[in-house]
């Protein structure tokens, strides 16, 4: 058992452990979970020389205040995040994302908040000491699966860090910038023709607003009540991350990592894989416009997304 750990002095709004997710469980009703923003999750690991799939701490909006006990570590924070390092001698440093830092024994890390996005990530070199459940370390708070009994962290909880000698890891300052536009590309859904021509045009041309009902399960939008001319319920069937369901009130809902595995509302579209990170990061009050792409275009855009990710990962070398 390791004796290095973070003591949680403030838990933050939704602080969990996430990795690339849990597969082969949809058929019994367990979502994939995993980091909402997969690219920032991978970059967080790369910045501290971890395997890309090492579990990290994911936080939403207000992050945790952590005190390091008994050892020193390397850590990194990715996303659009304001944080401070409060040294043991009371000196305070303003943190910068996409860098790695050394945290000494009894130093505190205050992850104050995300700025224009919802989620941020914190990695430590060597990783956290956690138990894998169904091939993943991701915490699924809906089914209480994963580390910490499948619950989000609370104040006074401890997060143990694997015992590893502090490595002299290379200082990295990655120059990462996220394309900031509000266009999300979508492939037509299996029930697209349930909607009136007017609704179809509204869906692909008009702006929608992210409501307060946004979490790791999904994001509810408002703006136009999309008119259904067929039926507002379908026989329940499987869902995927990015699927956009429209219930009878006409307001679209985008499914995210912790979504219910089946649903009974018509699907007007599905967000393409390359845009899932950005969709998950949308904050309440922000606007989004959907643009139609074909399957072939989506596949090509995904290749470009992967190339971009790899470019940033390589810059860390």
């Amino acid at each position, binding site marked *: 058992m390791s004796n290095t750990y973070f003591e949680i002095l403030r838990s933050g709004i939704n602080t969990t452990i996430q990795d690339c997710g849990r597969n082969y469980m949809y058929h019994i009703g367990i979502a994939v979970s995993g980091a909402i923003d997969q690219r920032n999750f991978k970059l967080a690991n790369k910045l501290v020389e971890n395997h890309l799939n090492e579990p990290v701490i994911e936080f939403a909006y207000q992050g945790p205040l952590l005190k390091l006990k008994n050892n020193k570590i390397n850590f990194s924070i990715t996303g659009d995040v304001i944080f401070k390092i409060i040294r043991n001698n009371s000196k305070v440093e303003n943190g910068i994302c996409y860098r790695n830092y050394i945290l000494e024994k009894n130093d505190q890390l205050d992850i104050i908040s995300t700025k224009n996005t919802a989620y941020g990530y914190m990695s430590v070199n060597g990783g956290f000491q956690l138990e894998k459940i*169904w091939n993943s370390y991701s915490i699924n708070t809906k089914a209480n699966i994963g580390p910490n009994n499948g619950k989000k962290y609370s104040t006074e909880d401890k997060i143990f860090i694997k015992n590893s000698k502090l490595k002299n890891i290379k200082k990295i300052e990655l120059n990462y910038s996220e394309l900031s536009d509000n266009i999300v590309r979508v492939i037509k859904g299996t029930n697209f023709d349930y909607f009136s021509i007017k609704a179809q045009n509204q869906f692909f041309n008009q702006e929608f607003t992210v409501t307060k009902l946004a979490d790791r399960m999904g994001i509810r939008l408002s703006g136009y009540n999309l008119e259904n001319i067929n039926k507002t319920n379908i026989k329940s069937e499987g869902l*995927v991350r990015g699927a956009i369901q429209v219930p009878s009130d006409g307001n679209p809902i985008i499914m995210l990592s912790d979504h219910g595995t089946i649903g009974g509302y018509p699907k007007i579209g599905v967000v393409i894989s390359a845009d899932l990170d950005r969709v998950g990061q949308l904050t309440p009050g922000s606007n989004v416009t959907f643009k139609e792409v074909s399957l072939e275009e989506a596949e090509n855009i995904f290749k470009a997304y992967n190339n971009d990710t790899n470019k940033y990962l390589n810059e860390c070398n």
Partner: protein
Amino acid sequence: MIKNISNLGDTAVYCDFGSEVNETINSYVIDYFDHLSKLVKEEKNLGIINLTPSYNKLIVSFDLNFTNYKEIKKIIENLIIKKSIKKNKKKINVPVCCEAGHGLDFGRLNNKLNINIDEILNLFFSKEYFCYMTGFIAGMPFLGDLENKIRCDRLETPRVKVPKGSVGITEQFANIYTFESPGGWNIIGNTPLKVFDETNLKKPSLIKPGNKINFYQISKEEYLNWNE
């Protein structure tokens, strides 16, 4: 058999077995599910990462880093379905307590269906049910078919919290809330049985698609003293 194959986004194949809901169509879905599960176990590098069977659809999710829609569609089309794969005809008995206020929607059902609760429960408990699928929340079974006389729409406004163990009915289906969850089904009782056990890593779900379910009534004393 599969009537149509299309894509659901860029990482899933949508297999449509028709629009009706019945045991025959659902058993085709489960046949494909069983065959694909076996294939995934045997050949790890296909890139298939999830299979989601439902009443009359099967969704096959894949990892776009390793494969694509065309490839997975081809695998599904080339699949030879032999009826011989293990049939899940297992029977499971599920105790339900309808006393002590567990029947949250007796009043509503009484009004909507115009028959008294005793008769509703008689009709409910007199039948064997078939598990079409599990999901929405972990391990929740979707069972059918209810007698025509006790088919009722879901609540106009769903409950924010349905208690864990609640047994609900709506339309032709019954289900069991394996966790406290939001939900709009008409609740007629509660089972003390652990239908989903996250600590049982090998077999967390008690009920699987294809299983047969027999509900039986227990008293509130039996409910309180239930010991698995």
